[in-house]
């Protein structure tokens, strides 16, 4: 028995792809099944790869990109192989299609609170390379968090230029502009371009001459950090895959939604040395409130709605 995971980029991005692959490997190891990794497939047609993996005997295909959520269910029906797809809550089909719509919005909310607490200039920035739903929900939750903590903090939101997924120079340029507009904490989401954002944070001084900090998402970039990483909304997808494998064995695959959240630490805020202990304590308290439902954070997936939120925040 084996499971296969397909990712659009190489699994070395300290982000979405790497988290997916690492989680699949861990879940597979725990369950004692082999894990086949097909990475760097791009956003084009993955049907050939899906078919091939299925014919090689994979008993679960994890299509780890929203771009694969049309092709994977089709192949599932064609070849009767279970697939897992993302961002498609209404695509469930028993025994065939499971969905895991992951949103780090709870974590991003905390990140927003953290940013608002830590910002010296009372101005923070959000830089994204594109506007896919899962990023939108985090951008929105981050903004809500900032606003909840301190309504006077200014939020600057910017999307990098055209075809920006690998535009590291664009990431750097836009981040520098946002820093110049006063922000001293950058909440950044982007694939290759996020390294450009990081570089900008490392090399640009805030208006007060102090450090600019970076808040990352999904992965943990601390191995490559030079002291500018404030935190990260880290996703742990392993429980999701573990549950899928369990459901597969229990014949309940395709009947549940899998999510991640603060509750089981599948979404958590990364603690770095840059966060003072008292702030961290406050954040942990807020975390409890979110889990208990005392603070409600609703995901916002739509790009227009996200932008509307920013404008209103900025005014």
């Amino acid at each position, binding site marked *: 028995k084996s499971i296969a995971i397909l990712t659009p980029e190489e699994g070395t991005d300290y982000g979405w792809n790497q988290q997916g692959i690492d989680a699949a490997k861990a879940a597979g190891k725990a369950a004692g099944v082999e894990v086949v990794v097909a990475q760097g497939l791009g956003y084009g047609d993955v049907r050939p790869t899906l078919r091939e993996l299925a014919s090689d005997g994979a008993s679960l295909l994890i299509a780890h990109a929203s771009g694969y959520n049309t092709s994977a269910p089709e192949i599932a029906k064609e070849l009767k192989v279970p697939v897992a797809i993302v961002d498609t809550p209404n695509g469930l089909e028993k025994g065939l299609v499971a969905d895991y719509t992951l949103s780090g919005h709870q974590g991003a909310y905390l990140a927003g609170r953290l940013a608002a607490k830590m910002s010296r200039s009372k101005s923070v920035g959000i830089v994204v390379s594109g506007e896919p739903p899962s990023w939108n929900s985090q951008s929105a939750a981050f903004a809500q968090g900032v606003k909840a903590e301190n309504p006077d903090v200014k939020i600057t939101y910017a999307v990098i230029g055209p075809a920006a997924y690998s535009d590291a120079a664009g990431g750097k*340029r836009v981040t*520098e502009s946002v820093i110049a507009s006063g922000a001293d904490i950058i909440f950044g989401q982007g694939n290759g371009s996020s390294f450009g954002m990081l570089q*900008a944070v490392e090399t640009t001084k805030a208006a007060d001459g102090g450090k600019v900090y970076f808040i990352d998402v999904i992965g943990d970039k601390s191995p490559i950090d030079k002291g500018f990483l404030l935190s990260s909304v880290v996703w742990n997808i392993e429980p999701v895959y573990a549950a899928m494998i369990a459901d597969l064995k229990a014949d309940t695959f395709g009947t549940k939604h899998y999510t991640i959240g603060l509750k089981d630490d599948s979404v958590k805020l990364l603690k770095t040395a840059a966060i003072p202990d008292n702030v961290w304590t406050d954040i942990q308290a807020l975390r409890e409130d979110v889990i208990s439902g005392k603070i409600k954070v609703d995901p916002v997936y739509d790009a227009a709605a996200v932008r509307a939120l920013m404008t209103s925040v900025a005014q």
Partner: protein
Amino acid sequence: MTGLFSEVFLSALLFGAVTAAIPLLLAGLGEQMSEKAGVLNIGIEGMMLAGAYLGFVGAFYSGSLWLGFLTGAAGGVAVALIMALLCVRIGLNQIVIGIALTLGLEGLTALLHHFQFSRSYPRLPAADATVIPLLSDIPVIGPAFFKHHLIVYLAVALVFAMGYLYRRTQLGLNLQAAGDKPAALDVAGIDVIRTRTIAVLTTGALAGLGGAYLANVGAGLFIPFITNGAGFLGIVLAMLARGRPVWVLFGALLFGVCLSLTTAMQVAGINIPTDIIQMLPFLAVMIMLVLFGRRASLPAALGIPYERGAR
């Protein structure tokens, strides 16, 4: 709304525009040289990638940005050497080889990055700026235009140097003849193949330098596909410029300003979908084409390999 646009922010936007424009400028100047000499250099994207990768490697391991620019230019020249050999010396189709080189360098640099940097993602420190006294004190404009790395001023100076070269030197005449009527150049005693080879290699050096600037200063790091079509934009700028380096500069700056404008509009919270705002730079160029593109005069022998005595 007005409060949003502080002086610092405005100059950062313009600064960003300049930074974005420099790689396009260098690529465009390079392409212009090839085209003048009659070679349609579609491989320029590949040359930029080679320059970006090798330029980063050079700067990262040596710690010197200048060494990085040197290795970057050398990388571009290495790719240009293949192009010169295949397209100028033995006359293979320039479009086929250009595209093949671009594809190949995309793959090769991504491959090398994978084995070398994809765990560490090294980043360079900030490039140190050469501040021009007095001028840099002008509000907004000063910090935007006169606090760049020395290479930026050199690139701008290059525009005028190239203008001089084209109009005032023998080499300029030779290049133009190689593009317009290579046989006439040949019978005047100048080797057409050599002239075109020089042009293509210069293109490689400039494109490589542009790539190195993009990686080392623009981004401060190398990732696969980092050029993102900058080479193709360079081709467009060169063709639009009708042989005049100054127009390449204007075109590159216009493009950079449009990019910054998209950021400005977003930050200002102008409620147009980002995707539409982001078409702006391309629309600007297209409008320029519709307005000024007529009879864009390209060299008569552009794209045609030269063979002595052939008919």
